[in-house]
């Protein structure tokens, strides 16, 4: 199960760094993990070359749900782009809405009302909790702990209820649009949110006891999938993957946006940089988000406008320019690069999803020499969402 220091039976490395794998030798086997496989994160697959039960080479394949969003956005007016951005990332769509809206606002010179700024922050933290809930279920599931997923799905569903009453939708909220947000908080929202948060905290306690204080989980996760902190910049690693390696990369602190400068929190970090450390960083980050949601609801203004005055959106033109807006999503740095050319349509939009680097170059490097049975857990621990890779 563990790494064998004796490499004599494994393929030799060519001068260019690739491996000399002779498939006809009978020593190697090609295995496809995904796209239909319980041990895969969404619609992607990993092409594994194994020697015995050890992976000698892995290639990530994406493209199973490429929808050409960046191109579609170029064919839509600035307001028409708003409903499709969320679809780039299903489990945590709000960063698309925020980054796109903020990029448009910056290039169009719009000022977002104070209350809208807070509601946006609230929504992003709610989304982060949900995203982590999906991750925890997946991470535990990759080790056979199915019950964790049931609990976190329940907790996520409660948060979806809160999303539904705030934004009018559960998954694709379409609530943060250029200029602000659609509406203020509904009556009694804070109260119901508090009940939800309490339930999430209770769930997290159970998760801690059953998943994190668990001999099986520890045995397999500790020491698995080590990311050398020196690799972080080379591979564009951000978010919990970086924080678990001891580097406190957090856009909320590094480049404060929205209401974060007025909120009290510390980025969660780890030291071991393995699967367990990354899971634990995320577990503790849920609690930070729960705390942040409480702070937001207490500190935010309760009235005032939530939308800036927009020009007639049907013929909205934005002067030539380019900008990049980032935010700290549950997986790391999420960003929108928007280029405008003076017309009523974006010239180019590029979505930077953190999984783009995590699931491709980084995963392909990390997967080598790992036991087949650990591939799923390793992959899940990077918390990758394929739709944001291929967009």
């Amino acid at each position, binding site marked *: 199960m563990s790494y064998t220091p004796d490499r004599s039976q494994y393929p030799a490395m060519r001068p260019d760094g690739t491996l000399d794998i002779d498939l006809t030798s009978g020593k190697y086997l090609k295995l496809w993990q995904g796209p239909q496989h319980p041990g895969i994160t969404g619609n992607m697959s990993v092409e594994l070359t194994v020697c015995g039960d050890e992976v000698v080479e892995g290639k990530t394949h994406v493209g199973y749900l490429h929808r050409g969003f960046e191109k579609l956005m170029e064919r839509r007016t600035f307001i028409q782009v708003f409903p499709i951005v969320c679809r780039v990332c299903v489990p945590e769509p709000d960063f698309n809405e925020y980054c796109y809206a903020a990029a448009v606002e910056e290039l169009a010179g719009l000022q977002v009302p104070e209350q809208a700024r807070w509601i946006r922050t609230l929504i992003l933290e709610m989304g982060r909790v949900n995203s982590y809930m999906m991750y925890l279920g997946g991470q535990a599931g990759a080790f056979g702990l199915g019950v964790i997923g049931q609990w976190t799905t329940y907790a996520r569903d409660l948060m979806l209820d809160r999303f539904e009453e705030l934004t*009018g939708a559960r998954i694709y909220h379409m609530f943060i649009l250029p200029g602000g947000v659609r*509406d203020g908080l509904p009556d009694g929202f804070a109260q119901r949110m508090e009940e939800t948060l309490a339930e999430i905290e209770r769930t997290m306690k159970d998760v801690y006891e059953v998943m994190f204080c668990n001999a099986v989980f520890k045995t397999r996760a500790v020491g698995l999938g080590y990311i050398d902190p020196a690799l972080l910049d080379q591979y564009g690693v951000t978010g919990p993957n970086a924080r678990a390696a001891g580097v406190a990369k957090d856009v909320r602190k590094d480049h404060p946006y929205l209401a974060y400068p007025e909120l009290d929190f510390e980025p969660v970090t780890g030291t071991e940089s393995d699967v367990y450390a990354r899971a634990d960083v995320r577990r503790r980050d849920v609690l930070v988000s729960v705390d942040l949601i409480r702070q937001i609801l207490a500190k935010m203004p309760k009235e005032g406008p939530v939308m800036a005055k927009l020009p*007639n959106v049907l013929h909205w033109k934005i002067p030539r320019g380019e900008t990049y807006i980032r935010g700290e999503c549950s997986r790391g740095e999420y960003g929108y690069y928007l280029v405008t050319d003076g017309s009523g349509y974006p010239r180019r939009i590029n979505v930077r999803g953190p999984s783009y680097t995590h699931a491709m170059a980084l995963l392909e490097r990390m997967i080598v020499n790992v036991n087949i049975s650990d591939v799923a857990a390793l992959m899940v621990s990077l918390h990758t969402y394929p739709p944001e890779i291929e967009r």
Partner: protein
Amino acid sequence: MSFKDVVSPFTAWKNLFRDPVTIRDPLNDRPGAARYRGFHQNDIEKCIGCGTCETICQNGAIDMLPVEGRATKQGDSGLRPRIDYGRCCWCALCVDVCMTGSLSMSNEYKWVESDPDAFRFTPGVDAKHWDHAELGYRRPEGHRLTAEHRLHMGEMAPEERIGSFAEIVDGYDVAQAKLEADRCVACGLCVATCPAHMAIPQYIAAIRDGDYERGVSLLYETNPFSGICGRVCTHKCESACASRHEGDPIAIRWLKRHIMDQVSVEQIRRAVGTAAPSSGRKVAIVGAGPAGLTAAFDLAKRGHAVTVFEALDKPGGMTRFGIPEYRLPYEAIDQDVDIIRSLGVEIRCNTRVGSDVTLDELREKHDAVLIALGLQLGRATRVPGTDHPDVRKAVDLLRQATAGEDFGTPRSAVVIGGGNVAMDIARTLARLQKQQFGAVKVIVTALEDFAHFLADPDEIKEAGEEGIAVFDARGPQQVVVEDGKVTGLRTWKVKAIFDEQGRFAPSYDETDELFHPGSMIVEAIGQMTDTALLGDALTEKLAWTRGRLQVDAGGRSSEPWLWAAGDMVRGPDVISAVADGHRVAASIHTAIMTEQAK
């Protein structure tokens, strides 16, 4: 790893004693949230079929289609949105942009149907069980994707303007016009309502783009009197504007004027282009008003030789001699007319048909004759005392005022009438009084109450600012004459203007009598056409309907060589006259090119 790590996972067993968290009957026990964006609802009475929802839908999920039993009318296309739920993404941009607020979304999200085509339906027309759902997404207050308020139009202060006949309204500057033009959603509901079907959304788009040459080309495609209409048009278009439902209508008239303000005469000439090569045909037009000159413009462009005969000393017809200068400066008329002249149209002023030249002569020398006489005779109230010489007709006074004749400005005057002509003469008199005596004493008495007033609200407001007293719902009973001099007008309160059959038959409350002092009484209750120039024989030969010359859709009379156009057949309105001019020109062109007319 510790002993705890072995034991702790077993705490999961405590969940055996918890209640399940699943909803037993989600189809019934789980309604959508109050703001849920579910299936659409459309208030079909409120909807005007402007299609803005279709324009904004980024999925192409909405079609605009006719609906049984819903007729097209002014300001309502009669179309209604049909939604294809195979494409809808529930973003609610259609609800956010809806110009009337008719469209919304219910909180219903469950609907099972085996026929996929059933998921393409017209909300509000095809009955659904959520049609009356109380909850669902409604556009939140203050959440607007278009600007609802009209840009303020600057104008001269009352105390400043009352002393002169200078134009009151400033016109928009480029920045203001761009903002106002930006409000337009380009639905085009206005186009059909405009008698001339001007390309309104397109010329407003030209303002947004700052392309005034394109703008003026578009204006001249349908209206050679854009300078005039940009100031005094009755702007029926604005009453059909989609923006009026949840805000102010677009200032279409001012935007038209703005284009004309921005272009030079050379630019207009370029936009108008040149006349076609000579056709060898000749047309005589009687009357240099908007209808006659529009026809002249069209016919000249097609290469016909056009001569316009005008009895007064300047062209423009009622736009010059009926509308006061403070509303429509003479330069604006001159500019529009000069462009028409530049196409080779000859305008012979001071030439009265009937005396200076006869209709028969015109008929002999031309392939077709068009009469566009306008309404130059004022109607009389025929109440006692109106035979006095100091009881005048508004049209006569306005004509004299334009000609610079002194008709003896009264120190105090009472105007009978509630239309724009009444306001025109009242405000003209007020200016003359201010100039000559330093004080304004003008009273307007109208049959209609303020809720049904005929004059534009702006006119009433501005007249009030200028010191004119407007009395509504007053019926004139007698002009009081003492010692041979007019001293004022006696009126009764109007109970109703029309009888139960809807005929004009005012009834009065005789106990509510008022005396309005004034040394001159002006009747401004309507106009009619002086058709004396036709002569008895021709009048006898022509077909008439209820006092009006009978013409076909192309303006042709029962005599094949004679056409009529404008106010005399259509009623008083510049833009209708322009539209009529186009129609008649097309009819004349076809006739003289295909028939051996005469």
